[in-house]
């Protein structure tokens, strides 16, 4: 009996020991690092981290398609398709949300409206993250302020789109924690005025601190880009003096000039030094490239606007067929304006019977069609869904860089700001300030390149020029709303000519219902929705 107790004691002692040893050894047993991911803390230790975070903001331009979107397909819907420049296109019933927008009957539950909202706030969040980490970054003041300037330039661009699309929106200038997201501060709309003030303060900083073209990497935000964007912002604010000064500074800087051949602006490659990516006219454009996993281009930007066979057949088409230039736009071009054929791919409506060839194995069902700059031949109308497509969104599958067969992210570099826009901003600001001479000079620079005669600047002449010069460049809807504020009735007239009925409340898109739901109703809807 005694023996048994002793034995039990020994066992209990042994167990106690095992327990103690295990415990001691396992004190840090539960501290497990995330596998294959870099933590926020590690980022803070990396001297290049803040710089990489700024690069990361630019990367946000690649989002889009049917997901959150900044400058891709859904932004195109809300700017071109919404305007009198373009119709939805594709097959008549494809993409009901886009059709709503085309018909100025957008509902608050429209998915496009929500995706563009969330996409832009992704951009804002990336900028805020970079700005947050830049505060403690160990760079010299010039480098650091230049990086801050880039982040603030991009943030201003995102907010400029937001305020033009939705009016006042929540103003996020820091990094709210998820737990703070529910605060009124973040869940209610700032006024449009406050948003514009914020944009101006970001751009003031960018103008003051960004290096200019030539002093920084091609593709990064520059001082001139910030000045141009701010000039445009002031045009919307009807502060013509500021708009004039800033655009004049870019013009006087002499770093930019018009590309000689209008159609070459949207090519990847220059022809005899003229045009191509990052050409002499380009102030800010989204950069793209070819990497191994085909992730370095704007998702679906080109393919969504590509010519579509639709229910017709006989060829492998180039895209979904959205964003078709309207007859209203076609009619806007003066005779001899080279920009018409630089902007629009016209589908040949005549059917013919060419001889068989490798490109065209089925003669009899196609005509000579439309041959594009790279030699690609689109069949004639009987094999194509729509009759007009955007040439500016076209990216050659043969003559320009491609990522294998993956056409979702073709490396099309979207031109966000170009010199012709700056000239026209300058012209309009000058005109409004009574300086007709400067306005006329600017205007005729643009017209001459288009192969047109000189005219004297008037407001309608400048606005006409803006329309044809910047057609299908995602500016028209905003511009029309802006012009309507200057000269009421313009939008109604333009939409009437386009066969649609304008209403004042269509100037702003609805706040996405999803976002209103998420704010528990604190985000208030725009009138008319």
């Amino acid at each position: 009996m005694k023996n048994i107790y002793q034995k039990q004691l020994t066992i209990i002692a042994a167990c106690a020991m095992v327990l103690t040893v295990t415990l001691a050894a396992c004190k840090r047993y539960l501290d497990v690092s995330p596998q294959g991911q870099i933590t926020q803390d590690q980022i803070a230790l990396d001297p290049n981290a803040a710089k990489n975070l700024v690069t990361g903001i630019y990367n946000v331009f690649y989002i889009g398609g049917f997901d959150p979107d900044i400058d891709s397909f859904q932004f195109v819907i809300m700017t071109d398709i919404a305007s009198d420049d373009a119709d939805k296109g594709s097959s008549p019933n494809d993409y009901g949300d886009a059709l709503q927008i085309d018909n100025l009957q957008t509902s608050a539950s429209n998915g496009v409206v929500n995706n563009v909202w969330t996409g832009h706030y992704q951009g804002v969040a990336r900028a805020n993250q970079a700005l947050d980490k830049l505060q403690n970054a160990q760079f010299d003041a010039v480098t650091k302020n230049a990086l801050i300037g880039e982040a603030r330039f991009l943030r201003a661009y995102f907010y400029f789109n937001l305020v033009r699309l939705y009016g006042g929106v929540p103003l996020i200038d820091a990094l709210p924690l998820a737990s703070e997201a529910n605060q009124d501060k973040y869940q209610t709309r700032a006024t449009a005025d406050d948003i514009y003030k914020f944009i101006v303060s970001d751009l003031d900083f960018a103008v003051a601190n960004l290096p200019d073209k030539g002093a920084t990497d091609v593709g990064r935000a520059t001082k001139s880009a910030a000045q141009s964007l701010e000039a445009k912002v002031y045009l919307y604010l009807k502060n013509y003096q500021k708009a004039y000064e800033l655009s004049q500074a870019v013009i006087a800087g002499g770093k930019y000039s018009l590309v000689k051949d209008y159609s070459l602006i949207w090519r990847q490659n220059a022809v005899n030094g003229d045009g191509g990516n990052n050409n002499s006219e380009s102030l800010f454009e989204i950069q793209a490239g070819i990497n191994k996993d085909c992730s370095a281009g704007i998702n679906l930007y080109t393919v969504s606007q590509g010519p579509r066979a639709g229910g017709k057949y006989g060829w492998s088409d180039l895209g979904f067929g959205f964003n078709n230039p309207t007859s209203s736009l076609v009619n806007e071009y003066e005779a001899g304006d080279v920009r018409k054929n630089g902007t629009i791919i016209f589908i040949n409506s005549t059917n013919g019977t060419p001889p068989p060839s490798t490109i065209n194995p089925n003669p009899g069902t196609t005509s000579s069609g439309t041959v594009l700059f790279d030699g690609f031949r689109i069949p004639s109308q009987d094999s194509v869904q729509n009759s007009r497509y955007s040439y500016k969104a076209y990216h050659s599958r043969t003559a320009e860089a491609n990522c294998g067969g993956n056409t979702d992210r073709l490396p099309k570099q979207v031109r966000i700001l170009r010199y012709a826009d700056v000239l026209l901003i300058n012209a309009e600001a000058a005109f409004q300030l009574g300086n007709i001479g400067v306005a006329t000079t600017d205007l005729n620079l643009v017209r001459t390149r288009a192969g047109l005669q000189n005219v004297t600047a008037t407001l309608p002449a400048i606005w006409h020029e803006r329309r044809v010069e910047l057609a299908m460049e995602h500016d028209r809807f905003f511009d029309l709303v802006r012009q309507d504020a200057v000269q009421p009735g313009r939008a109604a007239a333009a939409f009437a000519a386009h066969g649609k009925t304008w209403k004042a409340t269509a100037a702003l898109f609805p706040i996405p219902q999803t976002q209103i739901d998420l704010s528990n109703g604190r985000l208030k809807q725009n009138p008319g929705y």
Partner: protein
Amino acid sequence: MRKLFTNLFGAVLLLLLFINASFAQQIIKGKLTDASSGETLIGVSVLVKGTTTGTQTDVNGTFSITAPANATLVFTYVGYNTEQVAVGNQTTIDVKLVLAATQLAQVVVVGYGTQRRRDVTGAVASVNGDQLAKQPVQTPTQALQGKVAGVQVLSSGQPNSAPILRIRGTGSVLGGANPLYVVDGVLTDDIRNINNSDILTLDVLKDASAAIYGVRGANGVVIITTKKGKNGPAVVSYDANVGYREVANQIKLADRGQYVAYLNDANPGRIAADDKAPLTIPGSTDWAKAVSRTAFTTNHNISVAGGSERNTYFLSANYLDDQGVIKTNGFQRFTFRANNDVNITNKLKFSEQLSLSRGAEQAVNIGGIYGNVYRAAPIIASVDGNGKYGNTSAWGNVGNPLLQLDKANNFTLNNRIQGNVALDYKPVSSLTLHSAFNTDIRYNNQKNYLYQFNADGNTFTVGGGNQRQANSSLFVQNDDSYQYTWDNTITFDKTFGQHHLTVLGGIVTEKGKSNFLNGTRQDVPANKDQWFLSLGNPDVASISNNGGGLFTRQSFVGRINYGYAGKYLLSGSLRRDGSSKFSERYGNFYTVGAGWVISEESFLKDSNIFDQLKLRASYGKLGNDNIDQSLFIVTATSNVPYYFNNGQLNLGSVIQDIKNTNLKWETTDQLDIGLDFAFLNNRLTGEADYYNKKVQNALTLVTLPGILGDPDNRYVTNAASYSNKGVEFALRWNDKISDKLTYYVGANISYNKNNVIGLNGGQTLFAGGANSRTITRTDNGQPIGSYYVLQATGVFQTQAEAAAAPTNTFEANKIGGLKYADINSDGRIDANDRVYAGSYQPKYYGGFNLGLSYNNVDLSADFTGNWGNKIYNGKKNIRGSSNDNIESAYANSRFTTANPSNTNPNVITESTPPSTYFIESGAYLRLNNLTLGYTIPAVLLKRANISRLRVYVTSQNLFILKRYSGSSPELFNTNILESGIDATNYPVTRTLAFGVNLQF
């Protein structure tokens, strides 16, 4: 001491003498055997009724006792029905004891130990392995359907898909609502590697007794114990079945005539313009038929079991081949098992349980393919006589689903080693030291090849459209994981007089690690032997190895069970769990339970009404940490590309995922009150339970406002609390009418009420649907995933009526269109007019089981069903384009001027918003299994040395009674928030199989 003993002995002797003087005594001998197997029963208690005179059977099952002629002998043995025999003038009484049908006599596995069922204070259900093995299904959980009260099983017809199990309702949205599985000590979430024939018992911990598994016990625990050998000669068993499966209840889709008529309304002018050969065909294509087949299924199992006093063994091998009813789909599995026990000394035992499995799965993209089957135009050929496919996408429709099937080859090999080695040391009989090292190692290899094809005349009858694969591509993934659990426990078990005490203490250490590497290349040759990445185009390649998982857990377990006189039971357990998945590492989980065996009380003991009556109650706190690791750590995405200087790659980084850095596990408080009973000599047994489960700090994927810039606009946090309250009943009647005829009838029904108690500052969850129109809403006071849609009130009968109705912001009102209720009376039909319209979670579910055995024939039927739930017919609602096909029944009943229906609209388009029109009843009753067997009489087999031979025919899912118009109301959807939306389910199958059980 010695003096006292002598006195007592003397008194007893005196008493015996006295008794002896009263009656004529005789010696009675006999042997006790098992009524069914004939096995001798050792240690059966033999008692002269009303006295303390008794003995036990010896190793040969024999006994000898002295009793008077007017006495009655009572034979009792754990797990068997008690028999009483009047002595009369017999001197030899051989008794065959019948195994108690009641589960009350069983031993149940409760986690880190076992208990006699009569001592259990929690709600624990047990199912014998043979009940599971008799059904021609891959996993034991599929066979559990309708068998256990409080356990809802949803399984898919897709080979190698893991069934969804809900124990007492849905208790989690993100944390995973499936129970924890414990297979011979291995904690896992996947038991598809287990051969059903290897299972001895399956125990389900339904209540807070699962707290012994702490932070993983909140959804209940299913404990699977595999077979071991028994002392005796080798028993060789061979079980096999061969059968076929087919699609059950395929919904008929519109044929050419119906489709053409529909399209003339949905897309006017289309037919007239484009319905021309060679794009279209004059007849109709049955797309469901085109992609499906009658599938072959087979299962072979062989096992050898036996052993000696020193060691026992159980060895088995199994081959399962389960073809899918969708062409090319299928799964094959080999499993091997070796379970050995070795008694090294009387005090030291070594044991191991080891399972190897290798599965080969040929997967199909069922969401895409079966979704397209419902939408593909019937006027396009599937494939013509020359092997050219019909071009549905050129028609402006979905891709050709048959082509999708044929142009992809997705093959995965799964290898898995699972098992444990354990040492048990018993220094004294009351103390057991147990150390077990359990491990689970997996290695998977996947190759997914997509064949190149163009949208031209080589592939299709007519070129065009957008269905093409411009370049072939090969995706290869290798992933591996290992997980170990090291259990160290001490168990003290002793009876002191009327007191019985069991104390358990232990430490459990756990670690898991997983990793994967995958790569993709294009232009790999189409020859199967050349499906290696190196053979592809190196310029179009990607490799991914972006992190695996690593988690650790450390736990301390303790449990005390105390019983007094078999009447009063108390138990308590505590587990302190640490998990690396959370910043707050440790939590305590516990349970307390009490039981009162009323039938043992003197006022009932002799009443002969109850064989057993037990009242029990338990309360405890459990946890759920079933989420991805490091969800609480803010991480950066590095190497995001951007280009500067005309083509110079720059790699940036992004911090964008919003995280809750204070993430915690979910906690569940559960109360259970239950009653176990057995009447009429254990012929009628049953149990009833009431439970109340409350989940707090529930992890949920909260949709974030867009302003935070999170890429998917959501994050994981502890926001919600849910409750599940319910009642369960199980009843079973079994009887023996004669030696030849026995039968049983069992039934169980469960009522569960699921409710979101509060979102506690979190956001309402919307889910499901297309075109950003959600179908479900999870919000305060409603069941999880409730439908929240417009209320359809009929169909516009005239254009004037449509014009006068409130403005519809989704689609224009027109004759034949659906009418909706303007709930907020603002003159507009929009998202603010949505109403709650039920949920997928059934109010009642259960099953009933019948069995009959007459002579050598046995028949059994298992029914399962539920009632009180709703289904959203997403196949009808979610449209890709106006050229999509429709169901035949809808085609016949839709509004037309000739048939002015007031329920079915003229057309359903992409713009048609989610509404109550698409919501249908989910009630059903299904014959899950019907088996008819015949056992060849033993006399005929003796010469062949066969001890048992049974042949049978069995059918799974023979028929269903349902109200739902879709093919099946049982939806297999792992997304809890969308679980009731019927959109892309694998077709439900019906199996007919023939089998044999052979034993040597």
